[in-house]
């Protein structure tokens, strides 16, 4: 495989990974922000949904009550912004790095929930709530985080400066005397 075809394949894979990662963030954001059934898309109904999301954040017992609401109202819009940012491809290295850090934060929260046995005695049919947390941990750490890492690595690799030999080869292809123009 030549260098150019390898780069092309890498670009395609990076594009696909970027789109999937962006979709994950956008869908997650909208799921948290969309109004309750029967309610219209208004700022108030979105705020209500975000306040309901604060119940989930609160249940992790990782943040003081005073910051739970603020965090719950910032995170989903930020996820939406991050998804759009990834799709646009602008400053891809930075956007993919931010997405990786965000995924790391989610994994940390989920691991903490599992270690503290949040809800373990109150799972229906055995271990319901704890199973849900563990399933989510597997999903995020096994699928989403590796994807974010792969996109980040791909973004950095494909934006490397070309090696010096390529520049020399390009100069040698120019007509005689043009390099001094």
């Amino acid at each position: 495989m030549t260098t150019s075809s390898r780069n092309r394949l890498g670009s395609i894979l990076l594009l696909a990974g970027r789109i999937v990662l962006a979709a994950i963030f956008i869908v997650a954001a909208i799921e948290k922000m969309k109004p309750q059934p029967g309610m219209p898309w208004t700022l108030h109904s979105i705020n209500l949904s975000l306040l309901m999301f604060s119940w989930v954040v609160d249940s992790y017992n990782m943040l003081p009550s005073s910051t739970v609401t603020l965090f719950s109202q910032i995170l989903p819009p930020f996820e939406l912004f991050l998804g759009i940012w990834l799709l646009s491809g602008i400053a891809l290295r930075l956007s993919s790095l931010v997405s990786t850090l965000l995924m790391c934060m989610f994994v940390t929260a989920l691991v903490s929930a599992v270690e503290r046995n949040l809800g373990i005695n109150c799972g229906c049919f055995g271990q319901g709530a704890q199973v849900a947390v563990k399933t989510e941990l597997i999903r995020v750490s096994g699928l989403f985080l590796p994807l974010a890492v792969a996109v980040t690595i791909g973004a950095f690799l494909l934006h490397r400066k070309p090696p010096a030999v390529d520049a020399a080869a390009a100069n040698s292809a120019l007509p005689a005397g043009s390099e001094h123009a």
Partner: protein
Amino acid sequence: MTCQNSDLRRKLAQRTNGLRAKTALAIFAGILAFAVGASPQTAPKVAKVAAKVSPTEPPAGAPVKSYGSKSAPITLEVFTDYQCPSCRNFYEQTLRTLINDYVASGKVYLVHHDYPLSAHSHSGEAARWANSAARVGEFDKVEAALYDNQPAWEESGDLQKYIAASMSAADFKRVQAQMRGCEGPGPVAGASGAVSYPPNGKPCPIDAYITPDILLGTKVPVNATPTFVITYKGKRLAPGSGGVSWPILKQFFDSLLTQ
């Protein structure tokens, strides 16, 4: 590089960027449409479920397991298991304050539903005691006694001791009378939401007030305890589960009430 080549490259780059921007927009629109999920399609389905699981009026003579006024703008239905530690935390740290504050001031109508889990050996029996007490107007005392002393009776299995200590001897006799014929483990929520009995358990009259709660919880659906459902102005919101602290829940109620 000649001028012609650089012009061509510039035009090509512009066209490519334009194409990329349009593609990104199209993909975003597609993801947005998927995520929003054509809301008119999903809302009626949820609304149908909501209509089936709206708070049911208990049959005549049924135990009163609610707090506050039915005319309150917000109804909070809670599905709990008396042997569940998270339910205990939720009751101690959130519901108690809610009852003394927002229920007392007529903002919230709190309804308790039993959802004893099969994983807890005494939860069915605890639900029976609570319903027996509710039939004679002593629900609040028994609920408090069960949650306050949960670690103790969970280990010993002696629920009667703590229930008896929470009320007068005469009142306890009235509660005991409701429990006649209800020895052994009580009903629990089994697999697929069916009502089942542990080994050595058998139905008794008071179970008639527990099994409807379990079946109602299955429709919510209750996947973990505590699970709570809020209804405001006839609109049933998505259920929440796990313990929510009072400041967070209060903020939510305040936001609802200012709508």
